[in-house]
């Protein structure tokens, strides 16, 4: 991993702090992290694919309301699908699923989608960047949720369907419940961002 490498795409969360609001408060377990990360990734991918079409077909003043309406529709559809698949996880993410409509990753994808050129200077399609960023977001959300749940409660909750998701008890130690609170989310994210920076710096030094 080297940021000077050609085509390197930085982690949107740990490098750009994009869409950290749900990771702080909502991703309290592995299942919630995966489910929220997947929702964000799907919304960003669809918006990334549709925004050039909206740009080409709609007049200037209608583009923003149309994309916001589409974004809200996607959030709503994902919410309904999640409620049908796992009501327990949907209940845990009650406030944050509707907020997929204005997730940081989707907004940053839309900002870039409004650029005239669909290809970067190196010839790569911007849609590939969106796909990689969406995947990185999903993985980061799962890691944040997993660490918070494992260290905070000693369990790992899997995103299985049904009324109650499967829970694995991993460790038998006094749990650090603070990590499951939003305060713990802020603190963990701070350490993860610092760790990511340290790794990037070390790899940059090694490549020199």
């Amino acid at each position, binding site marked *: 991993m080297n940021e000077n490498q050609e085509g390197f795409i930085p982690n949107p969360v740990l490098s*750009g*702090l*994009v869409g*950290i*609001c*749900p*990771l*702080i*408060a*909502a991703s309290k377990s592995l299942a919630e992290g995966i489910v929220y990360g997947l929702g964000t990734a799907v919304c960003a991918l669809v918006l990334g694919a549709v925004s050039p079409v909206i740009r080409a077909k709609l007049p200037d003043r209608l583009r*923003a*309301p149309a994309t*916001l*309406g589409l*974004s*809200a*529709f996607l*959030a*709503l559809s994902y*919410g*309904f699908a999640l409620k049908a698949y796992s009501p327990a996880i949907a209940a845990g993410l009650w*406030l944050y699923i*509707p*907020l997929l*409509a*204005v*997730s*940081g990753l989707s*907004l940053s994808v839309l900002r870039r989608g409004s650029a005239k050129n669909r290809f970067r200077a190196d010839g790569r399609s911007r849609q590939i960047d969106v796909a990689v960023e969406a995947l990185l977001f999903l993985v980061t959300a799962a890691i944040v949720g997993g660490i918070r749940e494992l260290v905070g409660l000693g369990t790992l909750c899997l995103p299985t369907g049904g009324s109650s998701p499967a829970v694995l008890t991993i460790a038998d130690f006094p749990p650090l419940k*603070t990590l499951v*609170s*939003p*305060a*713990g*989310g*802020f*603190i963990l*994210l*701070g*350490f993860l*961002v*610092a*760790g990511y*920076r*340290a790794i990037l*710096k070390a790899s940059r030094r090694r490549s020199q």
Partner: protein
Amino acid sequence: MSYIGIIVTSAFAANALLTYGLGAVPDGEKGDSGSLVSALALALVDCIAAGLLWVIHRLFLAPLGLESLDIFFFAVLAVPILKFIARIAYSSRAAVLSRMGSRAEDLIVGSLVFGVALLSSKGGYSFPEALVAGASSGLGYWLAEFLLEALRERLELSDLPQAFKGAPAMLISAGLMALAFMGIDSAFVKGLAG
């Protein structure tokens, strides 16, 4: 709950930034976040957004049993109204109104305004209570932002390891501040203020 209880709960015990993580954005992107103009803009935008979503939720969607569509109708109906109001304020001749309008325009499409509106409309409040809850959430967010800004100035002068400088130090500080805000228990506030 009394109005004092709603104000204290929305601003402290259920702080939009430190309890719900709403509007947590990369540092250095907020402009004059600590100013009083920013506080007024936050309070007004959140108050109007909460009121609009309350009206949409209770008067239009609830009678039809379509409450779960609230975010869609908020995005397509309330956001254009909020943007229109912000644009009118921005084009005003009064400098304060113009700055408020500019700040409000930046805020409207974001998790803070959407989240506060959802919290206020789903909190079981009456219309005036939802307005007060929205405004106090905005002010609570501003307070947290203001305190973090003061901390940032101190952190910039302190001798931190390179990897922790900037955003990581701010996130950890925000976490510690959130722990302090967690101490303000909403049940205690309810008992105290009624």
